[in-house]
């Protein structure tokens, strides 16, 4: 009962804070929509995507972009939740969270689930907009995407949480976001399929794309939208999520992690 109470308190607070930050909500939706409209309209005739799984037929570029943009929504939410955790740390609220009489990893886990929920909500808003813009999607995509979106959102929030162990100040964190978000997005299959890069012979980019966990997340969503389970993508996404969370929980442990060895006042 106590554990559920703690979980509920943390999730409710995150939802309330999100509600009061309207600019965050608006930019979270405008950003991928802008990409979708501008890029797909512009690249419609530049990039043709020949038939490649999970697609059964020739698709237009806007269809190809959707999973990448969904992942972008989740990536921004994951980073945003970490930014708010760094803010909480600086504002002292993290201290309050850590005095709840439950294991520390559970407090962090609750924060991650809260972030995952927010990510999924935003993803669905974007999906609705994409549908309104007549992007071709399977009719049941919204349903088949649900578990994949939750997992992807959780993983990205985990990675964000891990970053907060090492990046202590908000100003630094905002900069770190740029180093994480854009490379993750650009060196993935969000904007173009891997074989296109292979065709052009730029091997080092191909390596980056293959090793980039964000690629796995995009592909997980891409296949899930077509009711297909991409095992490799799932394994990488889940693996990265679990490992990031474990490392982050360790980082926040005052007995073992970095937290206890920092200078005073630096929780």
């Amino acid at each position, binding site marked *: 009962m106590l554990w559920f109470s703690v979980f509920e*308190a943390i999730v409710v607070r995150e939802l309330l804070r999100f509600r009061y930050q309207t600019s965050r909500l608006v930019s979270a939706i405008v950003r991928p929509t802008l990409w979708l409209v501008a890029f797909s309209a512009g690249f419609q005739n530049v990039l043709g995507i020949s038939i490649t799984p999970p697609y059964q037929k020739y698709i237009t570029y806007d269809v190809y972009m959707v999973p990448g943009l969904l992942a972008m929504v989740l990536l921004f939410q994951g980073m945003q939740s970490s930014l708010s955790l760094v803010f909480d740390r600086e504002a002292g609220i993290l201290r309050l969270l850590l005095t*709840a009489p439950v294991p520390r990893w559970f407090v962090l886990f609750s924060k991650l689930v809260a972030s995952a929920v927010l990510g999924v909500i935003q993803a669905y808003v974007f999906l609705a907009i994409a549908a309104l813009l007549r992007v071709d999607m399977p009719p049941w995509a919204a349903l088949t995407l649900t578990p994949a979106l939750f997992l992807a959102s959780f993983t990205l929030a985990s990675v964000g949480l891990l970053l907060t162990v090492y990046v202590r100040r908000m100003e630094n964190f905002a900069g770190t976001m740029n180093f994480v978000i854009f490379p993750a997005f650009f060196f993935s299959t969000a904007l173009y399929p891997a074989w296109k890069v292979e065709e052009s012979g730029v091997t080092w980019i191909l390596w980056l794309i293959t090793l980039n966990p964000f690629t796995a997340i995009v592909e997980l969503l891409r296949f899930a939208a077509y009711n297909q389970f991409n095992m490799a993508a799932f394994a990488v996404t889940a693996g990265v999520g679990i490992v990031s969370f474990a490392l982050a929980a360790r980082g926040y442990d005052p007995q073992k992690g970095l937290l206890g060895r920092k200078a005073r006042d630096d929780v």
Partner: protein
Amino acid sequence: MTAVAIRDLSKSYGRTKALDAVSFSVEPGEVAALLGLNGAGKSTLFQILTGLFVADAGSVAIFGHDLARAPIPALTAMGMVFQAAVLDVDLSVAQNLRFYAGLHGLRGKRADTEATAALGRFRIADLAGQKVRELSGGTRRKIEIARALMTRPPLLLLDEPSAGLDTQSRRDLVRDLVALAKDEGTAILWSTHLVDEVEAAAKVIVLHRGRVLADGTPAALAVQTNTATLEAAFLALTRAEPA
């Protein structure tokens, strides 16, 4: 069962020894004041007591539970007020209180009842719906103390709780804390650098440069230092310490 039993607690930050073999205890129903200048190590001690940091040596037992080995039962017994205000300014007073309540297993109607009672104790029950951002520093402090009392903890830790309060409010706070200890049997440990607050305490622990210089009633301290007032006693003790 002793509420707080601290034995030989030490903590260093690099070469600075923030706490040096600190030992003292607080009994249930006792109001203990931790008196020290800025930089004496009071906040470090509180950070260790609340489980944020781990000491380098020594032990802390909260109602018999070793803080290092059984932190959860220890934390369950504590209510705490930190030195820096810890409130969500974008949320209302009630929302802040409900959040804290939830973190300690208090939900629904029970949480609301306790919140109203806690705010009422400081005569600010009418502020429940207000956004924290709109309230003054002194009021925010009262809210934080009320919040700590919501779970009716047997041990209350307050790190410089009177910071930002005017004279009257400070006096009211001390009076309310003493009443709390007497009525509910709450053990109270509060840190301050303001000597006048401490007169009402049952026990004063003087902390200076990480070391306990004195531990006893205000009267005993005056006798120990051969001075007339607590303030004189404190100054005598801290000046006597070599740099």
